[in-house]
């Protein structure tokens, strides 16, 4: 039974050509890019080529990119730099549905004395602009709002959110980890001051990411030490990972059209097929404005972990916003912020497709999932009650 991988928002596999590009930098070209000899110093060229490729993917210039250890470091670096940029401003804004890499930092800053506003979303996961406008003021140092949501795929109006932040005199950062490589991300068009992205979501290696810092914006480094990355991120460059990220970014840009032409079609087929076959389910997220690869479906009256374990029997990989899968006891904060009822939140499954998925794989999921849901509903006490209610009516 071959693997059906529908969990591309969690991570992706490294492409063979990316791996090949990286390989020499482990064993042969292991020199330190900061060295004066050409054996090490020569690697500087490889790093700069990678920087151009990553910058191209988001329409930035290479000098505006700093390599980091990943999306999380890029997020923390951006947030803490913005706070030092405006040391006297004590108000910061984010959304209630951010990735923990942003959300937890904001919660921590809240405990440390910052006034923090978490902007809510509506039932379809859309950003609450009115609430946002109402809390923005001249004391706001930073607005950090994600480009696209990892769980539902909902895309936020980053350009508008950014423009309002700038009007109020605040800096704007966006965590674009899920958007980059899946949709057109143009940082200039958006106007963002800082943007985080990550390699392992676009078929590059793990452990490498980048922070875009708008030219001319004063940046306060998070990691201090050596003079690497033009004094903006200390630490010996992870040359193989940077090279891999660059190659992955180059390929991502070339093949971006596949997300609209192929992945969106597969995702829609999967979604429509499941909705047709399975009663009592709902799509979570803004269907008009979503990443083309993400489908978050709630199957009422059953629990997400059980569904995933049953899918695992068929070698099908997905993820869930249920409480049980995370080891925490509450369902996903994103679904809770959207006000998804509990009977649906616990039974949510996220399918996130990639460029390499096929129609046959979609058909296989549409074939095996309905009986799984049916079986679990037979075991569930609530579904029986629901049937009884329906019969009485």
């Amino acid at each position: 039974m071959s693997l059906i991988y529908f969990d591309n928002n969690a991570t992706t596999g490294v492409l063979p050509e990316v791996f090949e590009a990286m390989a020499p930098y482990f064993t042969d070209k292991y020199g330190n890019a900061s060295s004066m000899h050409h054996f090490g110093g020569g690697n500087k060229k490889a790093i700069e080529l990678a920087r151009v490729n990553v910058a191209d993917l988001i329409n930035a210039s290479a000098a505006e990119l700093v390599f980091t250890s990943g999306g999380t470091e890029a997020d923390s670096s951006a947030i803490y730099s913005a706070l030092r940029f405006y040391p006297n401003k004590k108000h910061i804004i984010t959304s209630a549905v951010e990735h923990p890499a942003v959300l937890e930092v904001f919660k921590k800053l809240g405990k440390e004395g910052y006034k923090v506003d978490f902007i809510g979303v509506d039932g379809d996961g859309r950003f609450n602009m009115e609430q946002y406008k109402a809390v923005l003021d001249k004391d706001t140092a930073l607005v950090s709002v994600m480009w696209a949501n990892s769980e539902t795929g909902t895309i936020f109006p980053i350009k508008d959110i950014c423009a309002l932040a700038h009007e109020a005199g605040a800096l704007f950062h966006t965590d674009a980890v899920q958007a980059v490589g899946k949709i057109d991300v143009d940082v200039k068009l958006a106007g963002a001051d800082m943007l985080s992205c990550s390699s392992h979501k676009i078929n590059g290696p793990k452990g490498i990411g980048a922070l875009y810092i708008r030219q001319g914006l004063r940046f306060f480094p998070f990691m201090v030490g050596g003079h690497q990355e033009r004094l903006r991120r200390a630490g010996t460059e992870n040359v193989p990972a940077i090279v891999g990220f660059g190659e992955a970014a180059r390929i991502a840009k070339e093949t971006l059209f596949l997300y609209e032409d192929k992945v969106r079609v597969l995702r829609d087929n999967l979604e429509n097929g499941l909705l047709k076959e399975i009663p009592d389910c709902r799509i979570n997220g803004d269907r008009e404005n979503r990443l083309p690869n993400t489908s978050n479906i709630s199957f009422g009256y059953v629990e997400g972990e059980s569904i995933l374990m049953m899918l695992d029997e068929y070698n099908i990989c997905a993820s869930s916003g249920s409480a049980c899968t995370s080891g925490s006891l509450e369902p996903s904060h994103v679904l809770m912020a959207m006000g998804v009822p509990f009977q649906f939140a616990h039974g949510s499954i996220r399918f996130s497709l990639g460029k390499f998925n096929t129609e046959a794989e979609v058909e296989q999921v549409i074939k095996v999932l309905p009986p799984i849901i049916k079986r679990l509903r037979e075991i569930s006490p609530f579904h029986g009650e629901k049937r009884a209610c329906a019969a009485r009516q």
Partner: protein
Amino acid sequence: MWDYTDKVMDHFKNPRNVGEIKDADGTGQVGSLICGDALKLTIKVNKETEVIEDVKFQTFGCASAIASSSILTEMVKGKTLSEALKITNRDIAEALGSLPEEKMHCSVMGMEALDAAIKSYKQGGAPVIFEQEPGTNIVCHCFNVSEQAIIQAIHNNNLKTVEDVTHFTKAGGACGKCKEEIGRILSKVLSCEVPSAPKAEEKKPYSEMTIVEKIKAVEEVLNNDIKPKLNLDGGSVELTDINGNIVTVKLLGMCGGCMNAAATLKGFVEKTLRDKISKDIEVKQA
């Protein structure tokens, strides 16, 4: 990915006794859609022998919740009510091989549903929803967990930390506001379990002790507080005589020939005995 045992996976994939007994003698329910797991247990009881002749379950929840419910039905079938009431969550977890710590509350849910079903039978068969006794102190409002339930889980499972309590009862697992109170309950229960007899006894002043009591008291401090430290340096100490406040000892091993023997004797042995027993003690070398 949870590290589930084969037994858990077997009962998850092939759950036994699924469904609802139509003319059940007892129906117990626990949990809710909000909590993310729920269990409904129906039992058929032989009125004369009080043996549970049939049992069926319906569960909304994760793999371990379904497996816990399934194995519970196997465990209670054929047992008398009083035997069944003795089943603890620990028994359920053990029957499954083991459960991940974070999933122990699934086994607690099984025990609670069984209690509710038996209560339902005894009350004439009307369904009983497991709930805390009226008037009990609800500690965790997110998951509706009472102080009594927390104390029981601590006792049954030998829990030591707030995290343990959350794994077993869910209390504190959502907003986390009750964690402090769980900590207080935990320290209260744990401090009760420590044998309290020696603490309660008033210590007799050294001057009023009989010679045997003095020897015992000094030996105890020598053994517990002094010898282990001297052993680290390859030395030891031995009590040779007690005369009133004067304690005579012999330094052994490396300590015996050590140039710092006098300092060890006064600075460490005497000081420790003075701190632990009486400030009047004077130590001399044999």
